[in-house]
């Protein structure tokens, strides 16, 4: 295992030390393991809180700031945070106007955030939850834990954050997030496996000419193994797979995210984006907004994911609203 770390056990704390040093505009509580806006709590503003295992940076810590999250709770690598973290986050950022959790759909995240919500309720704070489950690689049936939450998390956190910034109520913030999630679908392919620091070796072996299609963001193998093909073919297949589960038709607009999984350089992501854009154009689907880069990663995994969010005017307007976080910034 070749990583720029001190020890596998200290990865989270050492990373938080770096985030604290790099972002003096944020408050990093290394003991409680919460990163939050320094101007929180803001009276009258719904507090938007998210979190999840570490190893997906910039998600979620990189999305804390005006126009997006009020707080993020980073768990250990690939391990959901514990309820104590969410409770600490709430006490740091709750401005009395309600709390909304954005939770990616994984058993661990769901359980820990639900426990936190229960405990918060016992303390008199009502929490609403937006569950993100956009990954079409997983069947959404009673025989699975349901679809995983992946790239759509960025869209959900952005639009919820924009609405919360304007003073909308908790119910409204939660429902725009649920809408953005419902309009989003994602699919990912991996060229290499991720190496969890504590495990010390890649999660699976992938021969030099094969890829895993339908991977999640936790280093688990995907649904199937396929030969590596030119980016054009791979992108076309990924577009097909996402669209097969989407309601998009010619004339529709989307927000598109071509997302790197951590080990793929930007020029490859741009190249893939070009292919994706061409395939969508052929079908008459317009990319109204887009992101190309590493946003929801899986440690050092090479590969990419595609997220398409069907974009109505309201979502686009919230997408365009000012944001000032380490990883997303526009005005």
């Amino acid at each position, binding site marked *: 295992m070749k990583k720029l770390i001190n020890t596998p056990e200290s990865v989270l704390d050492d990373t938080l030390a770096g985030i604290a040093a790099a972002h003096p505009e944020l408050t990093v509580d290394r003991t409680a393991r919460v990163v939050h806006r320094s101007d929180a709590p803001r009276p009258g503003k719904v507090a938007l809180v998210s979190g999840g295992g570490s190893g997906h940076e910039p998600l979620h810590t990189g999305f804390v700031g005006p126009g997006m999250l009020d707080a993020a709770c980073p768990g*250990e690598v690939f*391990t959901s945070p*514990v309820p104590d973290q969410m409770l600490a986050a709430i006490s740091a950022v709750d401005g009395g106007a309600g709390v909304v959790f954005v939770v990616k759909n*994984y*058993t*661990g995240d769901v*359980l820990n955030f639900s*426990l936190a919500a229960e405990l918060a309720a016992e303390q008199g704070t009502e929490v609403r939850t937006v569950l993100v489950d956009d990954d079409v690689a997983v069947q959404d049936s009673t*025989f*699975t834990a349901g679809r995983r939450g992946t790239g759509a998390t960025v869209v959900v956190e952005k639009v919820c954050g924009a609405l919360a910034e304007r003073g909308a109520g908790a119910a409204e913030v939660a429902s725009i997030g649920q809408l953005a999630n419902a309009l989003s679908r994602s699919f990912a392919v991996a060229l290499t496996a991720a190496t969890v620091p504590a495990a010390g070796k890649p999660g699976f072996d992938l021969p030099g000419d094969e890829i895993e299609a339908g991977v999640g963001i936790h280093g688990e193998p995907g649904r199937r193994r396929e030969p590596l093909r030119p980016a054009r073919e791979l992108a076309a297949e990924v577009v097909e797979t996402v669209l097969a589960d989407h309601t998009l038709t010619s004339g529709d607009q989307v927000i598109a995210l071509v997302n790197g999984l951590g080990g793929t350089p930007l020029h490859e992501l741009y190249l893939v984006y070009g292919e994706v854009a061409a395939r969508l154009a052929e079908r008459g689907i317009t990319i109204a907004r887009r992101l190309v880069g590493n946003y929801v990663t899986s440690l050092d995994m090479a590969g990419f994911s595609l997220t398409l969010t069907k974009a109505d005017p309201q979502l686009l307007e919230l997408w365009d609203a000012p944001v000032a976080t380490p990883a997303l910034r526009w005005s």
Partner: protein
Amino acid sequence: MSYAIDHDLAVAWLRAAAAAVEQRHQELTELDAAIGDGDHGSNLRRGFVAVTELLDSLDPATPPGTVLIRAGTTLISKVGGASGPLYGSVLRAAGTALPAPTADLTALAEALRAGLTALQKLGGAAVGDKTIVDAFEPAVAALERAAFDGFTLREASALAAEAAEAGARATIPLEARKGRASYLGPRSVDHQDPGATSTALLFAALAEVSSPH
């Protein structure tokens, strides 16, 4: 019939479990890397290190149920992931069912059944879904049978450990329907479930510390 569980046994059990996790976390992580995200061993290790610290500071008058409740709360606060809330809830529910300073085998079996019920309520998994439940259910059933048959804790916990171990091994051919392994669909077959395996460790630890009883 003598009692089955008291403060000392609860503490000894958790310490033995912590030692087993310390010794075999790598193996649990490897099982999890194959069909999950490769952290089950480190998750439990982090949790049981904290449980050990808790035990070191406990008043010896603490009833066994309270020991379990506080250990469960510690797991919830330290582990994260799916297994933290699940095992934490098991211990909290089981502990709640053991308010007295001592309890007999029937009460212990009932308490662990209450733990299993809490686990299933939280996680929604049934036997055959390739989860903790696949080892926990047969272990509790074995304890219950042994209690009904008038066995000692020593005999009962050995049977329970065996049942848990068999249940864990029986997850190998299953296709997962809960937890991360379910994402793999048919590719989850031919791997032993990490959570069921750690449950087998927990019951082996109980058997180990029950030997003198």
